[in-house]
């Protein structure tokens, strides 16, 4: 055993001198390092998303209902699982003081609230019976100060503080009216709640993930139709979606880099193994057994892959720390430390699999080399089946990708790779045939390159395919990155609406518009809104179990916001939001029956409509015509921009129209803006890594070509070819390869980016016309440039050097 290790170490040393290990090391560092960095970062961001989402919920998990909840039974179950619980109850009521009246969003809480996040209060933060905390806006509106009293219903309360930050404030529209926070035990004294009161009851839970899962599994089957579950990831879909989209993008990019690194490694090892055939024959002749050959070539690589993977993990971790530092320095976001052990183990495993599947199979051929080759050099080595070699690569990639990616994305990626791979080879073959025909009319030395292309068909096919693949990835990344920047970079221009005003009664609409105008504010567009519950689809009553997809369960449990406009010709038609259509499996022509109060009405779907939920303007799932909806109780809503310094306008608006509710979305916009800027820097960094991977790939292609080109070049020089003639001959070949590869690459990059934009990132299709024209030229210049660099090395070689 000691002898084998000694051999392994010796060969590691010799292979390093040979240059193979440099390619392998760079491939592992780049492939595994990038994956590790993205893994570490994803782990950190996911934890942060979890924490933040929990904070925004005030808990890890909650159940809400318009009916009282069985608090005691659930408390007992939760305590048995070591979970913390809290209860809250919300309703709207007028509050009064000094003869001033103001609508307040009353929230009554018990001692445990909030379970996650922090209630930041100026004044006394612990509520005793008979005490309340208020939103700052309520003090001037009611003309009171801390320490004064106010009335809610028939009970009197002492104001003990002002709420500066309420973690779960964004949970419901209703909660965004000025907040009044009181003790749960005091609610009865107000005598406000009775039969038919509109109240939102919540049961909050926090604890370990496993305990919550167990609790959820026990409770969920017993829930009634009114009792709705919210977990921490579904509370802020507007934040979760772009983050998930970004993480998908990061993983996809990391896998692209990994794939490039893996291909570079595979090509480099194949060339190395071919060059090692003679040396292996000598070793076999000197008495080396197959085990010795395996020790010399394979064990040494295993040793290398473990060591370099560990270093790659450390580099990945440092890159992740850089991202985390960037987030902290630039945006003040403190991301939690990533899960180190899991990511280290996964990255190490990735490195070993990478070497075992992309490098080993080629080297396995070496143990089949016959010692007789020392006497008969023409003796061919029986190769290991190419099914085994490529099969092991595909299986390894499948195994690895299943660790990193959602299954669906992996299927898309594989489909894309297989289709593009086959098309590459076919197209390259056809192009080369065409070029060879054209080449007959061209004179020497330009024809030299074309002859080379025609005669070395396999090599040309490989060069064009591999170069086209590398270029496809660069172009694809450039296009998708541009789409991503276009989509998110300009998402929130200055003066994006940051307040929603809702609950405007039809009779108030004109007064509200005049109020905006008289305060020199631009008048927002107000949209009518009717609330109705979807009761049947195609006359079939809704059964919740039939619609498990996406947001469907949530949409079907509650009243939806419907609006009306004169946009449709047919009077009983509706326009439905696209995603709702998908989640509920709807199609044009289906009928939807809605229940609005006691009345039921049926409409037919005329079209599906894409809605930009990040526009910060009123959006509706369903839009119908006035003739269908106008006779139902209607309120109006609109959104507008207000600078921080103009907040007094809000107080005036609230004073003038006490029934209106204001929703402040400033925090949401700022969170999204931060996220987008951070995402763009990370994307730029990854693009740099993609370029590095492509450079590595090209370097390997050139190295695989070096020996043959050197041989041909020296022979031609010996026969009297001038340096200029050689240069023109080679450059014509390189330029043609680059031109074909560039053309194929841009076409596939365009197709791929369109597919990924539509299916993975929910973006719209963009055609980049200029890129299609420029790409073949870029390909030709790049490859000819690389070729030129390579030829510089060959100019002084002579026959005696061969």
């Amino acid at each position, binding site marked *: 055993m000691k002898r084998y290790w000694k*051999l392994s170490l010796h060969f590691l040393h010799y292979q390093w001198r040979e240059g193979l290990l440099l390619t392998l090391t760079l491939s592992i560092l780049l492939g595994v390092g990038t994956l590790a960095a993205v893994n570490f970062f994803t782990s950190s961001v996911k934890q942060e998303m979890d924490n933040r989402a929990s904070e925004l919920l005030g808990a890890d998990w909650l159940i809400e209902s318009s009916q009282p909840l069985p608090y005691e039974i659930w408390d007992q179950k939760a305590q048995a699982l070591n979970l913390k619980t809290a209860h809250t109850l919300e309703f709207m009521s007028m509050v009064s003081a000094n003869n001033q009246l103001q609508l307040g969003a009353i929230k009554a809480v018990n001692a445990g609230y909030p379970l996650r996040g922090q209630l930041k209060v100026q004044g006394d933060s612990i509520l005793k019976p008979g005490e309340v905390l208020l939103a700052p806006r309520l003090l001037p509106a009611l003309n009171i100060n801390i320490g004064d009293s106010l009335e809610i219903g028939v009970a009197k309360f002492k104001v003990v503080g002002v709420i500066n930050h309420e973690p779960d404030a964004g949970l419901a529209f209703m909660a965004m009216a000025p907040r009044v926070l009181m003790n749960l035990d005091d609610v009865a004294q107000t005598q406000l709640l009775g039969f038919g009161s509109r109240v939102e009851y919540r049961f909050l839970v926090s604890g370990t993930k496993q305990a919550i899962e167990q609790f959820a599994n026990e409770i969920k089957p017993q829930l009634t139709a009114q009792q709705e579950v919210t977990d921490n990831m579904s509370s802020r879909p507007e934040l979760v979606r772009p983050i998930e989209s970004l993480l998908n993008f990061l993983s996809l990019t990391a896998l692209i880099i990994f794939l490039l690194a893996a291909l570079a490694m595979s090509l480099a090892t194949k060339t190395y193994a071919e060059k090692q055939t003679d040396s292996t024959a*000598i*070793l076999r002749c000197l008495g080396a057994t197959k085990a010795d050959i395996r020790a010399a070539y394979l064990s040494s690589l295993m040793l290398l892959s473990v060591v370099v993977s560990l270093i790659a993990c450390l580099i990945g971790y440092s890159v992740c720390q850089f991202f985390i530092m960037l987030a902290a320095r630039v945006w003040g976001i403190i991301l939690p430390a990533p899960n180190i052990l899991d990511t280290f183990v996964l990255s190490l495993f990735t490195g070993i699999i990478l070497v075992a599947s992309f490098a080993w199979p080629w080297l396995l051929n070496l143990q089949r080399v016959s010692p007789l080759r020392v006497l008969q050099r023409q003796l061919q080595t029986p190769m290991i089946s190419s099914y085994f070699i490529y099969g092991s690569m595909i299986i390894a990639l499948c195994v690895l990708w299943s660790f990193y990616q959602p299954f669906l994305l992996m299927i898309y990626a594989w489909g894309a790779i297989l289709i593009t791979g086959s098309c590459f080879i076919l197209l390259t073959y056809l192009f080369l045939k065409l070029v060879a025909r054209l080449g007959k009319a061209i004179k020497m030395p330009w024809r030299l390159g074309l002859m080379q292309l025609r005669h070395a068909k396999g090599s040309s096919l490989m060069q064009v395919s591999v170069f086209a693949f590398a270029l496809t990835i660069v172009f694809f990344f450039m296009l998708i990155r541009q789409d991503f920047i276009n989509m998110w970079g300009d998402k929130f221009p200055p003066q994006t609406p940051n307040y929603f005003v809702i609950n405007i009664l039809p009779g108030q609409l004109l007064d509200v518009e005049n109020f905006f105008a008289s305060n020199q504010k631009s008048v927002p567009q107000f949209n009518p809104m009717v609330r109705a519950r979807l009761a049947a689809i195609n006359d079939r009553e809704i059964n919740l179990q039939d619609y498990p997809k996406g947001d469907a369960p949530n949409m079907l449990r509650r009243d939806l916001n419907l609006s009306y406009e004169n946009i449709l010709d047919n009077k009983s038609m509706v326009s439905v939001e696209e995603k709702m259509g998908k989640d509920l499996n709807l199609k044009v022509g289906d009928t939807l029956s809605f229940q609005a109060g006691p009345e039921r009405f049926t409409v037919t779907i005329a079209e599906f409509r894409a809605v930009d939920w990040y526009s910060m303007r009123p959006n509706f799932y369903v839009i119908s015509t006035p003739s269908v909806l106008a006779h139902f109780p209607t309120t109006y809503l609109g959104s507008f921009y207000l600078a921080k310094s103009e907040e007094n306008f809000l107080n005036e608006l609230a004073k003038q129209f006490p029934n209106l509710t204001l929703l402040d979305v400033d925090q949401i916009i700022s969170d999204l803006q931060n996220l987008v800027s951070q995402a763009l820097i990370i994307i730029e960094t990854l693009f740099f890594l993609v370029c590095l991977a492509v450079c590595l790939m090209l370097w390997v292609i050139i190295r695989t070509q070096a020996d043959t080109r050197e041989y041909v070049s020296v022979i031609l020089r010996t026969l009297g070819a001038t340096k200029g003639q050689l240069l023109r001959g080679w450059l014509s070949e390189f330029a043609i390869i680059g031109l074909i590869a560039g053309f194929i690459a841009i076409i596939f990059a365009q197709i791929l980016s369109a597919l990924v934009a539509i299916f993975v990132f929910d973006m719209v299709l963009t055609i980049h016309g200029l890129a299609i024209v420029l790409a073949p030229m870029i390909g030709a210049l790049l490859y000819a440039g690389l070729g030129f660099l390579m030829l510089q090395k060959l100019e002084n070689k002579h026959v005696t050097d061969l």
Partner: protein
Amino acid sequence: MNASAATPLIQAQQLGKHITTPEGDLLILNHIDLNINAGETVAIMGRSGSGKSTLLGLLAGLDKPTTGKISLAGKILNDLDEDARARIRCAHVGFVFQQFHLLPVFTALENVMLPLELKGIANAKEQAQLWLERVGLTNRMTHTPKQLSGGEQQRVAIARAFAVQPSIVFADEPTGNLDAHTSEKIVELIFNVQREQNTTLILVTHDQQLAKQCMRSILLEAGELVKS
């Protein structure tokens, strides 16, 4: 030395080798009977294509015969797989080739150390150094084959072949790539070391002068032994 009295180190009985080509079977060697004793020096001669190198490959255990039986150091090679034959080569055999066949990225010292390490010899480096000094390459130990002349490369190959103290050394046209003066020096070196180590030497050569220095010569014609 009375060679006939010694136990044959190599015994070949009715050795034959043919290969299958698209045009049909091609006979390379036929009905070869041959005994070579320990310490003996034998030249295998014949025209190009007469089967000399094929016979050398079979005798050294690099290849298996199609017919007949062959034993090396008491082991029947016919029944052994490639790994088992490799172990026999490692224990008993050294090689010197016309093309030198040194590992191109290894230094002279590393090339000589290689068979010693394969054999598991502890002080491989010291032994290799001694052998390179012995063949007159004290100042060339860290040079790679590309930095050595043909004669120097062949000296490294000789050191590599004899360093493991093999029972038998096979030399395939050892002077075929060298000028007359260098050839003379190399032949002298091979025979000196062979005598010191009492190694059996089997030479494939076209060179009559070289063959004359061997105890006996065998002649192949069209795959058959015409003089033994």
